[in-house]
């Protein structure tokens, strides 16, 4: 598990040029322990940028961000991207080993165990080109879990998949998460998906500020068809509509 502290975080692109744009504006939040947090918001509100800053791929402009793991050392991270980002010239197994620290027999056994968890135990020698989109994304999920991270970052991992495949993968993700209980930060534009998966939803609004921080206190496992889930989803969607109207009306509103 991980402890993430974000304090007054700001990110501005193209600083000092006429095209400068502030994507994240003075946001602060904490994430602690074995929890599933979704970050939701309309396109362009800074969700993926926030995830990239947390992962270290992007630098932030101002503020502080600390990530620590169980033992107090820097948090170890796993990342699941929108598209699987597999090395096309390496087999599934070698793709998973690419991000591991070593290739000891224990590591290989662990990697195979996670491949089995996503139902791809027999596909270790396949190249990514021989797999469907859903299967490739399952490899991406297994790869992230197999590094046994303190923190798992997921950037709209199901957005490019068809509805049936995405639904199956969400259920599988919930099962794997229930077994491994990592800290997960999950970016999505889909409120329905966020409610199904999360313990907490942080809503970002255009301008890169936090609109709302919602705790989801529903029992697991959850399915989208569950009436309680549906009611909560409707409520949150209504609040997002209010946010949109407020943003459209401008600062005076």
């Amino acid at each position: 598990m991980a402890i993430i502290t974000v304090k007054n975080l700001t990110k501005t692109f193209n600083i000092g040029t006429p095209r400068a744009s502030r994507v994240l504006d003075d946001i602060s939040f904490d994430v602690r322990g074995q929890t599933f947090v979704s970050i939701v918001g309309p396109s362009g509100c800074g969700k993926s940028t926030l995830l990239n800053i947390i992962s270290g791929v992007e630098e932030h402009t101002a503020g502080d961000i600390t990530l620590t793991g169980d033992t107090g050392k820097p948090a170890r991270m796993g990342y699941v991207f929108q598209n699987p980002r597999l090395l096309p010239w390496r087999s599934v197994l070698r793709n998973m080993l690419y991000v591991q620290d070593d290739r000891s027999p224990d590591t290989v056994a662990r990697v195979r165990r996670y491949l089995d968890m996503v139902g791809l135990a027999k596909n270790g020698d396949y190249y990514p080109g021989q797999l469907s989109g859903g299967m490739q994304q399952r490899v991406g999920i297994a790869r992230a879990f197999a590094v046994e991270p303190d923190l798992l970052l997921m950037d709209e991992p199901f957005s490019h998949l068809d509805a049936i495949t995405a639904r199956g993968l969400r259920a599988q993700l919930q099962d794997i998460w229930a077994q491994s209980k990592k800290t997960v930060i999950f970016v999505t534009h889909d409120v329905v998906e966020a409610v199904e998966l999360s313990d907490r939803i942080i809503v970002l609004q255009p301008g890169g500020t936090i609109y709302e921080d919602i705790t989801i206190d529903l029992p697991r496992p959850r399915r989208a068809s569950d009436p309680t889930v549906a009611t909560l989803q409707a409520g949150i969607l209504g609040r997002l509509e209010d946010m949109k109207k407020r943003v459209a009306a401008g600062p005076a509103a």
Partner: protein
Amino acid sequence: MSTTLGDAVRPGRSARPRRSTTELAQQAPRWQKLFATELAARIAAVLAFAVFWVVLSAVFARVPGPIAVVANLIDEFARGEVFGNFGVTLYRFGIGVVLALVAGTAVGVLMGLSQLSRAFLESPVLVGLSMPAIIWSFLTVMWFGFGDLSPIVTTFLTAVPFVVLNVFQGVRGISRDLRDMSASYGVPFTRQVRELVLPAVTGFVATGARYAVLMGWNGVLLAEWFGGSGGVGYRARYWYDANQFAGFAAWVVLFIAFIVALDRLVFDPLVTRAFRWRDAR
């Protein structure tokens, strides 16, 4: 009312059912099945060239015909000139090309990964690309004399800029997504080079190698022509100076045959193997 493609293409005519590929293949005439193949096309190209050569030699007295060329080639084999001279050229060419591949790949990767390296090396590479092989051969003969070093260095200098350029383009083309993925997982730099960069540029290295061979071959022959002691270029010049065009053409045919064989028997399988992940289904 019919809505088949046939109606749309030829209004007013009744639609014909489309035939399957199996049906088309079965109904194809026998000559089409025999001659409309890749192998047949390649054989036809060689035969067409041979016919063209015969016609050319019949029209122009200074162009030796294929029979005279082959006869000279057989004489050269009988004199023991072929294997010895070819061996000498291959030795020089091999060293020059291998050095060009190693150095060119290293420089190309460096330029692709480092902005500063690229700024530093771009101009020398451009100079290398612009320099004709004949100039390199003159310079190396002046610098190193008539031994092995001149053809080896000419081969290297002629080939290396092409390897650098191809590998550099390959590294530049590596997916940003894969590089970000590697960074986000903290994959060590050496493993990134080994597992991400080098496989990604394999195709470009293969293309660079092909250019290295073609340009390098020009370089070694020119260096041997102007300053070689022995070798294919030296022997071709011997016949040229003796005004024996059939003898000269015999060596031209020999080294073209070598390059074609190298391409078909070495590069084709190498490239196929390098890209087996792409063609896997």
